[in-house]
């Protein structure tokens, strides 16, 4: 009885949060609802006795993928109006396809006969005296080793893609010689100033770039102000006042 009640609780929350993912206007809310949906799906897996899949779902989807997704959503400027521009244009077509799919699914569901042996087979442990995780591992590394290695190649290709499409040598890159950076004394880069109330950085004379130490640690072809550039704060202030 208990598993059935739990099943319906998880299933209802799962479906509701899935609906919310689609209809919520705020994309951060949608992402959070998706996390909720994953948590409930992993609850369903637990009821079905697949504890390894349940923990995978939490660790990979809720833990890693969705968190990354949230970061992307938060750091990206998405214009909802622009996103919904073509909506009215494509809605009728999409709606027709959705209806066809739903009708198909209903026909499939009507024709659904579950083999009476399936329920019995599902109750049997896969391999005697073996936990779910161990059984999965022993299958992956024996019967399905070919597919396992293929999956490895797929992930490798994904990694190559992420690197080759994003890593680029910009002319404005700044790189340091780490050893020299570590050799610096604190007083070469830090200066303690007491700041009065209601006074800003400008009033103190602005930022002072540690000129010497910067050139001391920068790599040779690295981007940075040229030695002739005006970096002294007094010169900058004079410039600003003149322009006023």
């Amino acid at each position: 009885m208990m598993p059935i009640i739990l099943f319906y609780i998880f299933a209802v929350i799962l479906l509701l949060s899935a609906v919310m993912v689609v209809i919520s206007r705020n994309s951060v809310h949608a992402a959070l609802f998706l996390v909720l949906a994953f948590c409930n799906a992993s609850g369903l897996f637990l009821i079905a006795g697949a504890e390894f899949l349940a923990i995978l779902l939490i660790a990979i989807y809720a833990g890693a993928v969705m968190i990354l997704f949230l970061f992307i959503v938060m750091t990206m400027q998405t214009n909802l109006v622009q996103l919904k521009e073509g909506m009215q244009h494509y809605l009728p077509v999409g709606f027709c396809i959705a209806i066809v799919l739903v009708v198909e699914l209903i026909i499939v569901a009507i024709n659904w006969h579950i083999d009476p042996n399936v329920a019995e087979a599902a109750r049997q442990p896969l391999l005697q005296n073996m936990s779910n995780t161990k059984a999965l591992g022993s299958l992956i590394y024996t019967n399905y080793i070919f597919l396992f290695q293929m999956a490895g190649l797929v992930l490798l290709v994904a990694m190559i893609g992420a690197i080759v499409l994003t890593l680029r040598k910009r002319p404005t890159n700044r790189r340091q010689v780490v050893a020299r950076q570590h050799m610096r004394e604190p007083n070469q880069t830090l200066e303690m100033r007491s700041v009065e109330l209601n006074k800003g950085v400008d009033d103190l004379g602005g930022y002072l770039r540690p000129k010497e130490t910067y050139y001391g640690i920068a790599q040779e072809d690295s981007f940075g102000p040229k030695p002739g550039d005006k970096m002294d704060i007094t010169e900058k202030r004079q410039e600003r006042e003149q322009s006023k």
Partner: protein
Amino acid sequence: MNWTLAIPEIALSISGLIILLWGAIQKKGNAFFPCAILSIAAFVAVGFLTLTVSNGVGYNGLFINDEFSRYMKILIIIAGFLSIILSIDFNGKNDTNCFEYIALIVFSTVGAMVMVSSNDLMTLYMGLELSSLALYILCAIDRKNVFSAESGVKYFVLGSVASGILLYGISMIYGFSGGMGYSTIHQIIASNHALSAGFAVGLVFVLVGLCFKISAVPFHMWTPDVYQGAPTPVTTFLSTAPKFAAFALFLRLMIGPFGHLSPQWQLLIEVIAILSIIIGSVGAIAQTNIKRMMAYSSISHMGFALVGLAAATPDGVMGTLIYLTTYLFMNVGTFAVIAAMSRKGHVVENINDLAGLGKTDPGIATAMAIFMFSMAGVPPLAGFFGKFLVFKAALGADLYSLTIIGLLASAVGAFFYLRIVKIMFFDKAVEALDQRSLSLSFVTFSMGTLTLVFMLFLSPMIQMGQIAAQSLFH
């Protein structure tokens, strides 16, 4: 477990890893050419391995090697080999000469080969993902070009949807038959003749996923944009290797596990073939960009190749195999000419940029004319024999309406192929194109020669095609 069956795939993956390692330890910029040479050597070696590896089923029923898979794998390896040769000079022009490019083509080829050898729906999916994922990246690899990014994103988003539909179909088939292996599905279908609705939906979804890969109508929308945006050597690869792999899956699935259902899927394939031929031929007429035109041309070629499958006979499969072989030669040759199109170091892609090529560079113009005539199906050239064999098979299977519509549409298609010949030879010359490089000339002229003298190899090709087709029907 007979692991040696997958030696060609394993060897090619290891060479991909070596290329990656070699490129990573080199100073940047120097790695592209040695990596390209390394990959060419790997393709040649793997080609020989593919020819010598034994037949059989291995890896617990996941993997199969037979005459059919050997034939298709050789086509795929040739496609990978030629795309690398095309890219040696081309990639210097738009600054995409990074070693990852080579490694990605190699891995995509591995994926395509695994697709061909799949004997299980899971192997099918893994091979498909490996081959497509590498292609998504390759399409977007020209980062300075906004069209390249568009092509990568479009292909990625639509390809993921197609993969999702394919997976959904696989899950349906698994649910209604209880097995993923082709032989299990074959037995289930053979034992109960009534087809349950869920099974039919699953079959159609798998068909949709594969139709997307070969860009058959109505899943062809991505083709023109992706072809246009991707760098030309990538487009060459995209229009050959993954299509051959998806076609191999199409033939293996439809003839093998779903062979007993042929009366049910035959009409579906017929409709897809007719629509692809018509939309491909008509759509190409209005194009001004030559890569977009080639995209529509490849849509119609896929339709013609599907005619052989619609016949569902060994002769039909043989016709499809010969068609794909001739398509490889014509297509790679045409793209080599397109890759050679540049003016003052800038790539040009308009059809009108070919004007007067017959006077300024008669050699390449003649080769292009051979490809165009062959694609239009003019008799002594390679393209004619492919079309002849598929339509002969269709007539043999009493598919008269399909044959008539196909022949009419191929006459429409001849228009835009011949228009290119007209522009090259009879229009007023504009500024001459840049001096073409040696590698592009090599590909153009070797493919031109093969297209021209294909009829000399016709009978051994037909024999090989028949052996390959027979191995599907057992």
